Every structure is written in C-alpha cells, then in structure tokens.
C-alpha cells in the first residue's frame, strides 16, 4: 500500500484583511478622469465605506494563503454522500469564460443573444431526453430553488383544478430542503417511515394519501443509496387520489441511461447541475437547479420560457397558467454553460458509463468496509452507501471522531449524521471519477482508523491533528455570535 495522502507541510498564517490595511494603499489602478467631475448634492453623499487598503500583492498573498487552508476535489477524494463531489473539468471553465458568454448582457435583446438562448434550449432538450420528460426550465438557481419551483407548480396545478390541497407526503429519508420547500407553499408535511429494507412501502403511502394531499416528494435513489423499486405503484396510488409525484433528482448520478423518471410515474423532477453535471460547488454555490416536467405540469413552468421558432430562439412570458418568476433574469447561465460542456464532452454513452461506474465504486466501498463499519441496510446500493458507528461504540468512538481522523489521512470525510433514518450515519459517495487506487487508499484509511479506535481512541477524540486548526467550538460560536470583524 502506498503512503496515505495526508501529511503536514508549511502553510502560512494570515491575518484578517483589515489587520493588513495601511492608509493610502490601493490594489487597483484607477482610470484617469476624462470628463468633468459632477458633484452630487452634499446631503446625498455618505462617507467612503471603511474597506481595507492593500497593495495588489497583499491581496494576492492573502487569498492564496486562505485557499491553502481549504480542501477541494482537486486536492483529494471528497466522498461526501448525497453531494456528488465528482471531478470538475477544467475545459468547462474555459467555455464559461468566453467573452461572448461572460460579457453577454441579459437585456441585450433576443436577436443579439441567440448563442446564449440556443445553448439554453439545447441543454433543456438534453435534460428532458435524459429523464424522459417533455419540458424543462433552467431558471431555478440551486437544487432547493428547483424544489421550490416544482412545489409551486404542483400548487398552481391544484389551484387550477379548482381545489387547493393542504398536505404533502415526505419520507423520513428526505433532504431537509423537501419539507422546507413544501412549507413555503403552505403545505403541511406528512412524514412517513420507509420499510425495514430502507425503501418506501406502497401501503404506507396508501394509508395517508387522500384528496387533501397534494402529492408526494420522493428522492430516488433515496438517501440510503437504495433504489425505490415500488415507485410506480406509489405513483399510481398518489395519482388515483388526484395527487402528483415530485422527484428529488439530487441522486440522478446513479441512473443516467438506466432509468428515466418521466417514464415511471414521476411528474416533476429537479436536477442539481453542480452534482450530476460536474459544475464546481464553489464552497457553497452558485449551483443551478433545472426542473423537468411532463405534459400535466408543462403549462405551469416559470417564465420566461425559451421557445424555438424556425431557426431562432425567443424568450416568451405569455403563459397564462405559469407559476411566475424565480430569478431576476434567466437563472445561472454561467453554470448552465459548464453543464452543457460536460454533457457534450461525455456524450450519451459517457453519461451512462458514469452512472455505472459511480454505482460500481459505491458497491465496492460498501463490500470492502462492511466488516469494519456497521452497515444498517445491507442491500445492493446505488451511488452511495450508509454506515454508522455501531461497532465503535464500545470504544466510545463516534462517527464524528472517525470523520475528523480521516482528515489527517488526507481525505474529506463522508456526509455525517445524515440521513436521519440511520443513527450517526457515515454516508459515502465516491463518485465515478475516483480511481480504484484512490478508493483503495480511502478504504485502508478507514480500516486503519477503526483499528486506532480500539487501540488508541484518544487519538481519534482529539483529531484532526494535521490541519491548520483543530476542532472548533461551534457551541460558543452560536451562543455569542460574532458575525463581523
């Protein structure tokens, strides 16, 4: 076995920006005024904001040092469950930076923005074909925003049908954004438990589905990494009572080219371009959360919509049943460019291969680690698998301790303490872009940590040891919040 990637080396301390500030410095060369100074009335003018005053090298060094305290996909394996931290291709950045795209003004006019509109139209088509739906909106700015769009469409649909409903069914494996999105539409969440095998049982849905219920929100594959194989039967139950099925597409990376949600009873599905379609997560966005719908919900899509007429593309707002508008312009176009470049680089076959290899990697991790960590749901998984700390309890070692110790080995920890349906979950999603060697290193790191848990538990409790800071006091941070310097 090769050496583990985690090591320590020289990194730099760096103060807060304003501690470096010196009166009179400026890191931008200002253009010389070429028109007369036009003074505004004095009572409209404020003091110049007290921003730091730095030279260009001050700024460059500051942010270079800060960046070195971060872990990214380019630094190492990032098996964060449900987040699909795959490699972010560099050519995507080149494409998004083209002057014709980056410089395009949103109000330049349709006839002068045909390239942007054509790209968006094509991307909508590809996403629809990938999932078996009829129409797509690219407007939502993130996954949760896409969920909101989907729920608002369901809400608009029931309003159009003449009777609004009051509830929505949400399984216990759902992301927290699901109930939060539903409550923005005024729907009460009806939580149902998944069965002993980790998937939804049609009976449980039938027991709560009624004509006051707007529908169900299903993540498939679910957050245990299991495929909801009763989905069609569940959809039939919901449809028979006049409800609709919302598909959370956060885990789409497992099923490209294998399952098309639009063909199996799902009415509306959101995508996360920053998960499945390789766009960088940016330390917390910007993402993009397109939404695909079937014929039932198409009239309710947000506006403007892109319409192709002969060979030209138009932005059309004139749809009387639309749910409204969700973004000032057309959504996160810069993110769409990257996802479009990814789809074209992969091709249809490449996307299908990606899903197969993502599932292979996850099953390989599951089988390799299941004697080391407890696996509460031991079934063939999709793109991720969920362990917990049951085996380590006798040494008083928690999921958190193991996660922190993984940092010392040079791996980003998996998602921890989610999904809530598994106590102290340790949720691994390797993604397809990790090689067997890197995954083997991760597996051996987890095994080494499990051994340390028995032999030297203190080492885990104090981990991480090699990072710039050690465990941070989150309780103190929340008790007396200090949110500005």
């Amino acid at each position, binding site marked *: 076995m090769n050496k583990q990637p985690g090591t320590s080396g020289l990194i730099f301390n760096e103060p807060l920006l304003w501690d470096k500030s010196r009166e009179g410095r400026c890191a931008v060369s200002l253009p010389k005024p*070429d028109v007369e100074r036009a003074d505004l009335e004095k009572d409209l003018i404020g003091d110049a904001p007290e921003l730091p005053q730095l030279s260009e090298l001050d*700024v460059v060094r500051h942010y270079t040092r800060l960046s070195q*305290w971060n872990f990214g996909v380019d630094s190492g394996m990032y098996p964060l469950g449900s987040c699909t931290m795959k490699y972010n291709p560099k050519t995507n950045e080149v494409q998004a930076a083209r002057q014709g795209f980056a410089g395009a*003004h949103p109000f330049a006019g349709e006839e002068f923005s045909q390239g942007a509109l054509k790209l968006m139209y094509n991307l909508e088509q590809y996403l629809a074909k990938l999932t078996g739906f009829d129409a797509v909106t690219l407007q939502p700015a993130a996954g949760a925003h896409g969920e909101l769009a989907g729920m608002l469409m369901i809400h608009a649909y029931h309003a159009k049908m003449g009777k609004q409903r009051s509830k929505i069914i949400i399984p216990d494996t759902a992301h927290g954004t699901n109930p939060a999105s539903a409550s923005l539409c005024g729907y009460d969440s009806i939580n149902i438990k998944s069965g002993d095998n980790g998937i939804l049982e049609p009976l449980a849905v039938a027991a709560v589905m009624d004509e006051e219920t707007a529908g169900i929100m299903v993540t498939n594959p679910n957050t245990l990494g299991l495929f909801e194989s009763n989905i069609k039967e569940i959809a039939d139950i919901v449809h028979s009572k006049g409800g609709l099925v919302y598909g959370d597409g956060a885990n789409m990376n497992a099923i490209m080219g*294998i399952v098309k949600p639009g063909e199996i009873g799902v009415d509306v599905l959101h995508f996360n371009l920053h998960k499945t379609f390789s766009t960088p997560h940016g330390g917390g966005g910007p993402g993009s959360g397109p939404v695909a719908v079937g014929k039932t919900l198409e009239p309710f899509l947000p506006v403007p919509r892109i319409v192709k007429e002969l060979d030209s593309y138009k932005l059309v707002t004139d749809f009387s049943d639309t749910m409204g508008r969700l973004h000032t312009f057309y959504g996160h176009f810069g993110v769409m460019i990257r996802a479009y470049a990814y789809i074209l680089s992969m091709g249809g076959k490449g996307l299908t291969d990606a899903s197969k290899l993502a599932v292979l990697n996850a099953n390989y991790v599951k089988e390799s680690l299941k004697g080391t960590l407890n696996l509460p749901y031991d079934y063939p998984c999709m793109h991720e698998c969920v362990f917990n700390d049951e085996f380590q309890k006798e040494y008083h070692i928690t999921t958190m301790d193991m996660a922190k110790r993984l940092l010392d080995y040079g791996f980003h920890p998996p998602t921890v303490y989610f999904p809530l349906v598994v106590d102290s979950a340790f949720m691994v999603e390797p993604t397809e872009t990790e090689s067997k060697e890197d995954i083997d290193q991760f597996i051996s790191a987890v095994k080494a940590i499990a051994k340390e848990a028995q032999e030297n538990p203190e080492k885990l409790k104090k981990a991480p040891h090699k990072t710039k800071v050690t465990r941070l006091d989150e309780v103190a*941070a929340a008790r007396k919040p200090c949110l500005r310097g």
Partner: protein
Amino acid sequence: MRYLPHTKEDIESMLKVAGQSCLDDLFNCIPDDLKTKDSLDIPESLSEWELNAHMEELASLNIACKDYKCFIGAGSYDHYIPAIIPYLISRSEFMTAYTPYQPEVSQGTLQGIYEFQTMITELLGMDIATASHYDCGTALAEAALIALRKNKNANKIAVSSLTHPSHRQIIDTYISPAGYEIVEIPYTKEGLTDVGALGAMDDIAGIAVQSPNFFGNIEDLSSFKTVAEAKKILFIASFTEALAFGLLKNPGSFGADLVAGEGQSLGIAKSFGGPGLGLLAGTQKLMRSLPGRLIGKTKDANGDDGFVLTLATREQHIRREKASSNICSNNGLNAMTAAVYLATVGKIGIREIAQQNHDKAVYLKTSLEKAGFESVFETPFFNEFVMKAPVSFEQKRTALINDKCIFAGMRLDKFYPGLKNHYLFCATEKISKGDIDQLAKEVQE
C-alpha cells in the same frame, strides 16, 4: 473518456468484490419494467477541440464582442474586473470545495466569507450580512417573507413600483401561495416612489423601496422609514447597483431594518444575468430571522481563532418544515469574488470608481440632451437615468448594435407601457468620453 479512470482490469476486480459478474448486474435491484428501453438520445462525445469550436460558434452568436460598448444597466452592470479577481477566484481550493461543513479543512472559505460579511455590513451600514443569496430578487422575496412573518396581523407587503420589475414578480411568486399579497406604491412625476400613497394603505407588514430605483433616481429613504416606524412595520431597502454606496449614503444610515441587494457589480461577470450575487443584511434585532448561511468567529481546542458556519438552527437541514427558508447552496463563490473585489479596490478605489460612474452618467445625459433627447426627470441619479428619445431612435439603436456593437439604452415601455420612446441609459467607469461623444454623434438628429 478522460474523466473516467477505470481500466478493464479495475472493473473486473471491483465487480468481483461487489459480487457481480458485469456492470449491468449492479442494477438488478431495479425491476426490469422500470428500466428504460432506449439508450440516451444525446450526441456522441466531443473531443476538447471539437467542443471549443462548437462553443465559440455559440458564443459568437451573442453580440458581446471584445470591443462592445454597453450603455445598459437595469440590474446587470458593465464594470471593470481587475485581472487578479478571476485569477484568485479560480484557485481550485476555493472553486472545488463544498459548503464548509468540515471547518478544519475549510478555513479559507470560512475566513473569506467572514471578511465578506464584514465588508458588506460596512458597505450597507447594517449590523449583519448573510453569506449570500441567489440574486437581489430572491433576497428581496426572503426579506418580504420576514416582514410578513413578523407582523402576523397583516398579509400585504407594499413594494415600490420603481423596484426592478423582475423583483416584484419574484416577490409575488414567493409570497402568493401562502395567501399574501403585494401592493405597488405608485411613482411621482419626479420619478420617485410616492411616499404619500402609503398613508392610505392598510394591512401592510412592510415597505420595500429600491434606491437608486429602477429609473436610476435616488430615493429619500428617510421618508419611508418614518412611515414604517409610525405603522410599526419593517422597512426594507433594496438596490441593484452595489457600487452606488461607494458614493451615496448607505441604507443603514436611513434606518433600514432589512437590505436586499444585487452584488454583481462587485467583480462578477454579467454572464447573461447569472450567476450574480444576492445580498441580504439586517439589524442585530433580526439576526435570528435572517435566512441563509452565516459564518461566525470562534476558537479551536488550542484556543486559536477560527471560523465556523453558525446559527444553523434556523436552517432547513435542522429545522426542516419549520425552517425560515429552504435555501441550502447559495452563491458562495460569487460572495468570495465580491470580497476579493472589495479588498482590491479598497476604501480609496470604491469612492473613485463610484464617483467616475456618476461623472460619466452626467456627461452622457448632457450629451444626449444636446443630441436631441429629452430629459424626463430632474432628480439626482447615480449612474442610470431615463431619456425620452426622438421617434427615429429605435431603428438607429438596432443599427448601432449590428454595425458598431454599441448597446444604446434599454426600452422602458416593455416594463412601463405608458413610457413609449423612453429609454433607460447607464454609464460606468468603463465608458470613455470618446465612447460617449461617438454615441452622441451617431444619434444626433
């Protein structure tokens, strides 16, 4: 495919461990009737150079060529982006990281966003700034929801008719499913929100006014604060041009309870309208009502300073249906970009850039008047203003785009049907005197 590392041998040996004989068997847990029968109808993969050619062809269909002149703002501004900004922000440690859930290996993002929060509070004169929203429109909708939740006896929100038209639509989309309504405050002949109209408005939970407003005019925010105080409701200020506060009094100085704004001007490319940067700031009193991420300072086990995501108990992953918002991913990298921009221009730079925006806009307005355009409002503005154009202008405007790559103003009648032949113009520091003189010459009657 260069992103997929598996060799044939890797696949075979991994399948063996997984207890399957071929890749397709990995999907045996999916019933056959749920699997799709057709392969994906998506084109074959392109090599990088084929991709480059295709993308450049699309990009060149947009008339945003290297030397185009942009006299349009309306929520997306053509400011100069110093070279160090894209250079620093493309560092993959920033770009390829997730939300900083593991603070020990995310201190770069965390300190950077803490500094961002600090600089935004300084720019806006507010106590607290969140770590970002999607854009101004969505931040403003969240602010409206805060006001409505705080004031349970009212179910309307008063919004200036000179708030960006898209923002008004977004607010409506966000609040109407829960049974709330938006009422628009009309505008006066000076191109300002009619504060007098508020007196007759009942049942309102908050007042939202944009300044500089959609016409570019600077509102007297103190008059709205006075009304809000008398009605005991929240006053929300919004803006689309963040650089205005390099020169103008900030919204905090007028007593705004909440501020929603667009930060695209702070070093972020226009990129056909997104991603931009939603800013949401509030007073200390509203700290726990603010939706979205917040970064706080704390200590580590050794007593050293460090930063963490904090006050998560407001958020959806803890509170689920009781969360103040469903927001999860925000526009973090653009917040970092804005921070780098603010650190780069600094106190001296932001003042001078803001002043130059105003100077150029005043010169542009004077030049257009000389060229036969009519000034519509005699109200102070920052870098945007409304002009009534000669009837022949629309044709000329299209020709100017096609022939000279000059985007001369934006038609207002699409948003305000009464304003035929009215155009919204913008000038930023990127526009030179020569550009303005050329435009004036081209449009001269």
